[in-house]
């Protein structure tokens, strides 16, 4: 008998997402769902959807969900986890959501050491609202609110969230991964697995920043978008583990890729 060795994980709902063709949001969803399945925590997991393209994430997982207001998912997660420490709580947030409007919430959630898991999808753009500049938009990259390309003199350089959170003294797990090729996705899953495991063990706050694409608003076909990510984002956003709760930190590398 044929055995199915790869198929939709149980924590992923059998629906078709609204994501654009080739948008890597879908891959990240599946990786999370697989990890939830593997850890056997589906029935006690609560996810938090952001305001962003993933706003409908609550339709795509077979776990209970809360829909947060824009940027505040870490605060919502804090509320849930403090109320019910037995639940496994994760947020799923875009770069506008987490790195712009939600900066205070993510920094403080991490700093309090809330035992939640944050999946941070960095696609260098505001996807849902139609392609405005994000804090993570690359220098020179065109967006609808920087029609001549991001001018670092006016808008500053992109923000590296993983590095930023790694400076906090409170123990945590902070990593950056990517999903633009399957092998990178394998690594991303490993990072997500570690992130959730730390939560299951009650150890610490965990965040995985995942570099992602937005073919639609970048204005390129999906395959090209993956290449653009590798060529433009990865040098500035180095992958790896930035911080672990046991202190075996990889020192943040400001200036790396500058």
């Amino acid at each position, binding site marked *: 008998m044929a055995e199915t060795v790869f198929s939709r994980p149980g924590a992923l709902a059998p629906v078709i997402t609204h994501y654009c063709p080739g948008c890597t949001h879908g891959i990240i969803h599946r990786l999370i769902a697989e990890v939830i399945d593997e850890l056997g925590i589906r*029935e006690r997991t609560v996810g938090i959807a952001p305001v962003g393209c993933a706003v409908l994430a609550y339709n795509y997982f077979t776990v209970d969900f809360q829909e947060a207001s824009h940027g505040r998912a870490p605060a919502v997660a804090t509320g849930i986890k403090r109320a019910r420490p037995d639940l496994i709580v994760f947020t799923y947030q875009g770069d506008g959501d987490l790195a712009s409007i939600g900066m205070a919430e993510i920094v403080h959630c991490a700093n309090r050491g809330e035992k939640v898991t944050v999946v941070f999808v960095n696609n260098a753009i505001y996807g849902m609202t139609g392609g405005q500049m994000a804090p993570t938009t690359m220098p020179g990259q065109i967006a609808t609110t920087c029609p001549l390309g991001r001018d670092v003199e006016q808008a500053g350089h992109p923000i590296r969230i993983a590095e930023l959170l790694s400076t906090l003294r409170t123990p945590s797990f902070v990593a950056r991964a990517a999903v633009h090729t399957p092998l990178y996705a394998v690594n991303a899953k490993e990072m997500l697995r570690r992130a959730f495991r730390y939560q299951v063990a009650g150890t610490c706050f965990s965040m995985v920043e995942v570099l992602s694409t937005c073919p639609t608003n970048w204005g390129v076909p999906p395959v090209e978008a993956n290449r653009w990510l590798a060529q433009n984002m990865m040098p500035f956003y180095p992958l790896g583990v930035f911080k672990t709760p046991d202190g075996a930190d990889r020192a943040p590398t400001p200036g790396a890729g500058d």
Partner: protein
Amino acid sequence: MAKKLMKGSEAIGEAAVQAGCRLFFGYPITPQNEIPEYMSLRLPQVGGCFVQAESEVAASNMLYGAAGTGERVMTSSSSPGISLMSEAASYLAGAELPVVIVNIVRAGPGLGGILPSQGDYFQATRGMGHGDFRLLVLAPWSVQEAADLVQDAFDLADFYRNPVMVLGDGLIGQMMEPVEFSSDRQPIKELQPKTWAATGCPGDRPTNIINSLFLDPEELERHNWKLKAKYDAMTRDEIRSASYAADDDYDVLIVAYGTVARVCSTAIDELRERGVRVAMVRPITLFPYPYQAIRDAALRASSVLVVELSTGQMIEDVRLALEGARPIHFHSRVGGMLVTPDEVIEKVECILAGGAAEVSHG
């Protein structure tokens, strides 16, 4: 339990604990710091959890998350901090989450001052956040009533799945009065188990989703009317007001709420002693507003006096109640200044002497 002399802020905190509140999220702001301070000490004693949020924005969204698990939760703040909760208030109402929000109002606008005010009446009863929604608003006039209303607030919030605001001012927060907590308090509403809470999805039940997004406008329209139906139900079932010295006849009816009504009661006592016929209706729920009670009471008087610590907010509701049926006079102090009994007495005497009404195109 025996009576205890308690600060209003502490009584509010203790009342919440007694009502089963185990989570408090807040951010310091004068004049309500004693509430979070009390909770930071008290909640761990009962197995609860106090979190000092990084801001009121964060506090109100923590509230959202915690309420979504079905636990009883509360936050408190004062005017500027409450403004920062506007977006969350709208989300809470949209997602139908039961929470209790305490606003110990201070004088505004802007940074303003920290002394008592009733300048947030419009915000509390109408405009706290975007979209069609209402908070159920309770306004105590004493520390005991603050404690009672906070406990009721949790029941009402749960029953209607709607945020409930307790609106006080610095006097309520800062003063000490005797308080008694009954040891076998029963919920004031029949409450259902919170099967809607997002606490992990066992087996095959459909997932529970705490949400205010409805991309389909027809669905959102239905949702809006569903919310409206709740507000109508509140209007039918939850209106509360009290009257003072209204058993006897009166010529002037005072309408005032919160601590201002206390001041007016003193004025009424003195006026009655002098033979001046005056009474008061005191709204306890500000939304739903006791339009009918005020109208009925006003029709027994020849004129109405609204006293509030704002340049004129609740007076609009009194106008809506009376629709021109009686002339309405107005007295107020603002900016942290307080109305005194003497001022009220003087105003009533001036009315009886034929002083012109502020509003009288009826």
